């Protein structure tokens, strides 16, 4: 019995963190947030070279075929550095969707390109999870019409995979005619989001996506990735808080020697430490205990989002006025955690789903 990360997983995490420290320091994050697309491209290229685009792609399509625990480690590491790169939609959910539901032809067309870092696919499940503004799509005769909001990794995407209300998945090239891409500006400028307005867009259905277990698996994976991103980001916020409290003096003392500050840090640690175990456990369920995977994914997304909210608030407070400044940049982590909380279902929505999974409505 061994519960935890393997040496290989730990070294992957360290490699990503080192890469981000060297290639995406705070100045770079700020530059990307201010619109420096070249810098964003360079960091994106860097994570492709680390092999992250092909991490979950099967070996026969040129990927590394690693499991969800590896993907969780990656997502957490990217969250810790507020890495301004596509990952959760393009390199986890999209290849999973193709692999689970695509025809052989679809797999052959897309998966090797994803693994090779030549193709970024935006993923939109918002209308399946809970449509806002009555958005939604209709698919008939290989054409899609309608509107989809909050496509994850949708900016500069080469293709899109989106879901309709009943959970069927459709793929189409971004160069197809009839697509209007509307860029959405969220508080989190380390990641991008778009809306798609679609008029008679040529599109293919992912053949096996009639079976709703397909979209459920992709949704579970996406929720876990978001939770892992939050855990990574929240851990950095806690670490920065402790470090700051051991530098900053007031009343002739380090502020970290005041119980008020110590208890804020202890409360963050007490909430956050179990979240590391929880994301590993949820990943393990997706890899090996399918009957527990869905409930675990919902509860992990909900619980980690709540803890992330608390940690991101408290950590900002520990930094006092500096925590509120752009100069310190702590707000990038705060906002990243804020976006993760809402994507693919806010805690209340996801808990509602967790209740249904357990038959509480019966």
């Amino acid at each position, binding site marked *: 019995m061994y*519960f*935890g990360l393997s040496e290989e997983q730990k070294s992957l995490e360290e490699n990503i963190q080192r890469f981000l420290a060297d290639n995406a320091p705070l100045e770079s994050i700020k530059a990307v947030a201010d619109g420096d697309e070249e810098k964003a491209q360079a960091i994106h290229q860097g994570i492709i070279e680390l092999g992250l685009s092909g991490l979950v792609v099967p070996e026969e399509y040129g990927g590394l075929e690693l499991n969800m625990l590896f993907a969780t480690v990656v997502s957490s590491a990217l969250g810790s550095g507020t890495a301004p790169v596509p990952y959760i939609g393009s390199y986890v959910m999209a290849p999973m969707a193709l692999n689970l539901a695509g025809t052989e032809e679809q797999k052959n067309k897309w998966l090797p390109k994803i693994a090779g870092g030549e193709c970024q696919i935006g993923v939109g499940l918002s209308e399946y999870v809970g449509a806002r503004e009555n958005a939604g799509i209709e698919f008939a005769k290989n054409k899609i019409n309608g509107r989809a909001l909050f496509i994850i990794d949708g900016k500069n995407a080469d293709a899109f995979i989106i879901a309709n209300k009943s959970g069927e998945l459709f793929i189409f090239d971004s160069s197809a005619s009839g697509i209007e891409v509307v860029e959405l500006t969220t508080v989190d400028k380390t990641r991008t989001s778009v809306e798609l307005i679609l008029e008679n867009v040529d599109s293919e259905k992912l053949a096996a996506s009639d079976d709703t277990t397909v979209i459920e698996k992709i949704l579970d994976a996406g929720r876990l990735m978001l939770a892992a991103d939050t855990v990574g980001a929240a851990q950095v916020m806690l670490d920065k808080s402790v470090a700051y409290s051991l530098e900053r003096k007031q009343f002739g003392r*380090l502020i970290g*020697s005041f119980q008020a500050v110590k208890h804020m840090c*202890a409360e963050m640690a007490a909430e956050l430490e179990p979240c590391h*175990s929880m994301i590993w456990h949820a990943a393990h369920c997706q890899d090996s205990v399918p009957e527990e995977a869905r409930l675990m994914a919902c509860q992990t997304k*909900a619980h980690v989002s*709540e803890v992330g909210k608390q940690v991101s608030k408290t950590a900002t407070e520990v930094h006092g006025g500096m925590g509120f400044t752009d100069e310190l940049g702590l707000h990038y982590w705060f906002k990243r955690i804020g976006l993760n909380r809402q994507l693919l279902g806010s805690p209340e929505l996801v808990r509602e789903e*967790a209740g249904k999974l357990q038959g*509480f409505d019966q």
Partner: protein
Amino acid sequence: MDLEYGPQYDEFRAEVINFIKENENTKLSGPPRSESRVAWQQKLIDHGYFARSIPKEYGGYGGDMDIIKLRIIAEEFAKSPIPKPAGGQGIQMLVPTLLSLGTEEQKQEYIRPTLRGEILWCQGYSEPNSGSDLASLQTKAELDGDEWVINGQKIWTSTAHLSQMCFILVRTEPDAPKHQGISYLLMPMNSEGIDRRPIKQMTGDSDFNELFLTDVRIPAKNIVGARGEGWKVANATLGHERGSLADPNVTQNRLNSLIDLMKNETIDGERVIDKPIFRDRLLSIQGRLMAQQSNALRILSSQINKDQDAHLAKAIVKLQGTELRHELEGLAIDAMGELGTLYEDSPHLRDNGAWQMTYMYYLGLIIGGGTNQIQKNIISERALGMPKEPKVQGA
């Protein structure tokens, strides 16, 4: 990541299940120390389901220290209404202390009857003016010939009315710095000069006592460790106490009962669980519990795989576990509304009043065993490396 215990444990689990099946109708009667309770405890020791790794010569089973086997025993016993092995401060705190720091004579004299439930122990640590700041304790003991003479006052002494023995911290070196002036003594509760007064708690029960000690004489040999080393001796066992509070696997059983309760209780004919706000609170608590269960797996793994570090995961268990349990019990009361306030032997009472009782009891545990504020000091100082409070002059 590997959550399987391995096929080599299948046979062991089958043995445990078989034992439980054969004994599932066991009913214990009488007060603590009664014949049937001692006999049951001895049976559990004989089969290695209790005191498993304690040497045979001291009354244990004398088995290997296999964490997974201990885990399997706990899992299977938890699933059945079969009587559980006795606990208490003697078994949880004194026995490990004697095993590592007691003299051979002390081990021979006390461990076996303690394991069998023939000697019950209480803990004489806290004093009216020494709670969180335990090391400031003032109860003193002076050596007079071959006897210690103890004078002072202890408080929060749980089960003192049932106990035959007390492990007690006293000041024996008044001129030494506060942590170095304390000794750890073993005091028979039938000694002359012990005046016990029960403390009635908010629950209505009296689990705790005050002890007034006036010229209590005990043999000089009843000291564990050297004179002045009592603080170290006591700290070796405080860890055992904290680890045993608010186990998430026990809380899981309680959550299952809460779910049943919320499916059964109705408001205007509608089940409480069908009301979205109540249901959301329930699911929030479940999410927190699942996080604690994952944390517990990590701790278990670190006990099996010695190179794995889980010190922060362990440091938070008491704080997180007691707070969650208190909230869980509180949700049950809210789910029952006015019915949730019923107590003692009232008409319409649910579950013998256990929800109110446990709600209050866990508030006691939030305070006891090192208050949760002290827990936060420990987490921030020992796990996060933050500085201690500056010392106040003279304290």
